[in-house]
């Protein structure tokens, strides 16, 4: 199947595994930034088949995981209001707030709806002029442009019963924060390909140079990830640290000018708190002053939220690559997808959920990578 099978080919994968093995002379720690990459790595068993010197560290790039508890509690409060239709992508519904989740609000009578596009939420607003329709706008540079476009459309069409609960975050400041941490173990980054599809690569050379760290723009299919790892290891072994684009079929250096223009019109950069990590300067977006009327926090004046994080959950350290999921004492015991203590366990892109779902049983690999295929 075009665009699926051809990036999942076991014979080509074997060649890439062989190349990586041949290149590797010493231990290296690589961070895949995006939760989608983490999911793909664990789902396909890529980490099991790499040379043992290559350590993959799972990064903070799961949009569900890093949405602050305070915003989730605000979402729960807004969604509970009788006049509100609260719309969200599916995987936010099971994320625990301080005491409950959106599924619970729905079962208690809240009008919570799963949509596949923010434009669906706008259509619901048009069809229900007597209700307030709120869309939960979370995620990285990937989901921000369509959310921005929806607000732009709402204003253009004069739809006044629509608003956005915004918690958008930006990847480059997070990479900077990780590298500035005194405990940082990361020696190279696999940058998130879809983020660069929108934003291009202009923000990365300065980071690579300042932190002396290779950054390889990487896709999400198995062969994309292996090519990203191969290029990162090649740079590390050669003592180089530049930005490489290993995802050229999707990423242009300048990104998407139309998407960037929409972002610049609707959003402005702001400091943003990341769940489990804390405040990262200039790491988020909020609605610009021209669109303040469409800000759900402003419209519903949600304040006085008292958040309560689990005291045993170590998802913050998982998100920063400081520990692996199973190194948390609660992993698989008090903390499971059924009863998640932190968002890294509840989101399907979260590193803890990926380990629980796919790696709960450590089955020794019966095949060496060289015999794959």
């Amino acid at each position, binding site marked *: *199947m075009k665009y*699926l099978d051809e990036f*999942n080919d*076991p014979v080509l*994968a074997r060649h890439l595994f062989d190349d990586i093995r041949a290149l590797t002379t010493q231990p290296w720690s690589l961070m895949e930034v995006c939760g*989608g990459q983490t999911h793909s790595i*664990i*789902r*396909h*068993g*890529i*980490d*099991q*088949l790499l040379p043992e010197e290559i350590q993959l560290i799972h990064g903070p790039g799961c*949009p*569900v995981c890093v949405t602050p508890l305070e915003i989730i509690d605000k979402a729960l409060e807004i969604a509970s209001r009788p006049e509100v239709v609260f719309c969200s*992508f*599916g*995987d*936010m*519904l*099971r994320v625990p707030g301080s005491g409950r989740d959106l*599924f619970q609000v*729905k*079962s208690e009578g809240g009008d919570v709806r*799963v949509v*596949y596009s923010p434009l669906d939420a706008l259509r619901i607003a048009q069809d229900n002029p007597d209700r307030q329709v709120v869309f939960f706008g*979370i*995620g*990285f540079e*990937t*989901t921000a442009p369509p959310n921005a476009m929806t607000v732009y459309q709402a204003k253009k069409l004069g739809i006044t019963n629509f608003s956005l609960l915004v918690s958008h975050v930006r990847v480059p400041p997070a990479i900077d924060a990780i590298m500035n941490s005194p405990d940082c173990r990361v020696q190279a980054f696999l940058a998130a390909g*879809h983020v660069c599809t929108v934003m291009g690569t202009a923000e990365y050379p300065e980071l690579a140079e300042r932190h002396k760290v290779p950054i390889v723009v990487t896709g999400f299919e*198995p062969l994309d990830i292996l090519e990203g790892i191969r290029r990162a290891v090649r740079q590390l072994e050669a003592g180089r640290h530049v930005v490489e684009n290993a995802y050229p079929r999707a990423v242009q250096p300048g990104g998407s000018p139309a998407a960037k223009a929409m972002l610049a019109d609707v959003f402005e950069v702001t400091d943003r708190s990341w769940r489990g990590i804390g405040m990262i300067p200039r790491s988020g977006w909020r609605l610009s002053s021209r669109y303040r009327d469409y800000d759900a926090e402003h419209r519903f004046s949600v304040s006085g939220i008292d958040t309560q994080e689990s005291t045993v959950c170590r998802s913050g350290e998982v998100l920063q690559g400081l520990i692996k999921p199973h190194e948390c004492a609660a992993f698989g015991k008090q903390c499971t*997808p*059924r009863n998640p203590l932190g968002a890294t366990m509840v989101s*399907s*892109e979260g590193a803890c959920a990926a380990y*629980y*779902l*796919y*790696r*709960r*049983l450590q*089955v020794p*690999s019966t*095949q060496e*990578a060289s*015999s*794959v*295929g």
Partner: protein
Amino acid sequence: MGHGGGGTLSAELVEHLFAPAFGNDVLAELGDSARLPASGERLAFSTDSFVVRPLFFPGGSIGDLAVNGTVNDLAMSGARPLFLSCGFILEEGVELAVVGKVAEAFGAAARRAGVSVVTGDTKVVEAGHGDGVFINTAGIGRIPDGVDIHPRRARPGDVVLVSGAIGVHGVAIMSVREGLEFGVETESDTAPLGDLVADLLAACPDVHVLRDPTRGGLAATLNEIASASGVGVALEEHALPVPDTVANACAFLGLDPLYVANEGKLVAFVPPDRADVCLAALRAHPLGKEAVAIGHCVPDHPGMVVSATGLGGTRVVDMPLGEQLPRIC
């Protein structure tokens, strides 16, 4: 809603709430249908309720599902389905033309399955208290002599067969329910499996386990059998029959085809020395012509399903918790 998804939450509702409240030895087997002793004969008895939305979808309707669902649950204990009851719960205001269309589909499906609809009931609930039409069916079938099919009978070495493409029904429903288009229209594979099972049992009466992987998909079904039998199931990911349309839709939505609902498909656990004969019998029937072996039972990791990935790694295939949720990006 998660308690209706066919995963862990559904199983817990049955095992911890209903089964203890109703408790008896027949129910405790928790098969797709109950096996009843009756004056020298063995009867299978099963019931199911259908609340699908929309009522009509590519390849079928709630009427077809209500017949095929119960007929297939009977067939999964090796029984020849014989009689069916139907209970219609109608929402005030639903058009009679719609009810008539559902009833016609119901009758046609019953004729195709070779069962007689012998008793029924109709109730009407107030507007806003239903979703148009809900249907409950119960069915009775006869289990042939020498057939002993049961979720606890899987043994190490058993070969796991599936009768055709997986994920088709779930994608067909999603495409109409959510207004999603995936390039090629996918039709539900709903169908009665009584004849297919009869052909399989004629070739090999010693089939150990049969199950139709409906809600919760193949993953939930295999986990239930692994857990009931105390064996491990080792899957070969490359062998899974996933059509391009299903793979594309799942890739688009961030879903795993192993967890997407099927209709008109069966999973069979058969002795290793009879696997080829069983496969040939399935493939000789129109509803099983794409049957394949997808794995086998192992003594390792009892109660769990583990898949070999296409690249040569391994991963646990877990029981779904509730309904699958599309991912953000």
